[in-house]
């Protein structure tokens, strides 16, 4: 068989029979968001919005590079996003705006928690001293991080915004772009309000 003939003998995610190293018996407790992601998969399947096979194909369609770089549930959630775009159930723009909103809400919650917490308050006050012109101000560690964080919260220093905000605009449409060759699927999956 030709070299390219070998390539098409198996799906990109099919591992059976390939050479592989030792089995490391790793296990981890699911993080809360991973558990929610799993529950979301079941609920989407239940409502016949995305079934298990569509999810598997969606992960496959991410391509080898993304699949190897992302963790298990990271692949799932990106696959869901792409499938929902393709089924015209949401747009990349809607998702980008909503992610911005969610990130801002979490920033506010974290900020409140830091201000409420004793140790957090201490670093907050250390920052205030530093602004008074203290010569012992150190521009690394928690003080600096808190500064950039609180500034981005009030929105006058976008460059200091946390990394996840800075990358949002570029990365969503890139992974979320609808592939050019598939026709939009006319579908109305709205369920009755039960």
């Amino acid at each position: 068989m030709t070299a390219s003939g070998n390539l098409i003998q198996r799906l990109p995610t099919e591992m059976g029979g390939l050479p592989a190293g030792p089995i490391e018996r790793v296990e981890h407790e699911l993080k809360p968001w991973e558990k929610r992601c799993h529950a979301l998969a079941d609920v989407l399947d239940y409502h016949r919005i995305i079934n298990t096979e569509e999810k598997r194909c969606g992960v496959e369609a991410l391509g080898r590079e993304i699949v190897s770089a992302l963790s298990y549930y990271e692949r799932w959630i990106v696959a869901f996003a792409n499938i929902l775009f393709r089924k015209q159930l949401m747009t990349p723009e809607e998702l980008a705006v909503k992610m911005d909103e969610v990130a801002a809400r979490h920033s506010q919650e974290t900020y409140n928690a830091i201000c409420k917490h004793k140790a957090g308050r201490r670093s907050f006050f250390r920052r205030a001293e530093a602004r008074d012109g203290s010569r012992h101000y150190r521009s690394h560690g928690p003080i600096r991080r808190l500064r950039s964080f609180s500034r981005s919260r009030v929105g006058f220093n976008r460059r200091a915004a946390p990394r996840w905000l800075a990358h949002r605009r570029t990365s969503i449409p890139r992974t979320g772009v609808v592939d050019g060759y598939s026709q939009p699927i006319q579908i109305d999956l709205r369920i009755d309000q039960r």
Partner: protein
Amino acid sequence: MHPHDHTPSIDDAPGYYAIMETAIRELLVEKHLIGPEEIRRQIEVLDSRTPALGAKVVAKAWLDPEFRARLLANGRAACEELGITFYDDTQLIVLENTDKIHNLIVCTLCSCYPRPVLGSPPDWYKLNPYRARAVKEPRKVLAEFGTPIEEDVEIRVSDSTAAVRYLVLPLRPAGTEGFSEDELASLVTRDAMIGVMKVNTVRRNIQ
């Protein structure tokens, strides 16, 4: 960790993909595609699924030949008899180990697993080495798990799909005559129901 030991910091912020999960979920709820309480309810269902359910099925099959026959004929229906609901569209085929046959389950494509009866699969089940090697050199894989299989025993590897999942019915260990159903169930581990281990009489906590 005790909550009071934790100093809040901006590192508590959710990661990019966690934010994506929350955003998608909230958009789906806003669009009335899913109900607002459905995710929480499904998490409760998922939390209720542990290998203890599978162990109960196995112990019952060891004690009740008629149940075992029904279980081998239709795994899903027999589990539902015991009140184990299948929240997904999967069928369950139960594979019986005998003196001459040892069964092993795998998903070479992804991570299909009998979740309604065992809960979430361990990470190694989802990772490439197990998926790649289980179908090619099962005897070697089993030996790595500390489960040498005699040369005259046939190893059957079953590759799961999105619609069909497998559960191994392990051999009942010798020396368990007179054990109650609960006592038997306490011997059955998750790994024995995947097929990478045998059940032995040393009682252990279900993983």
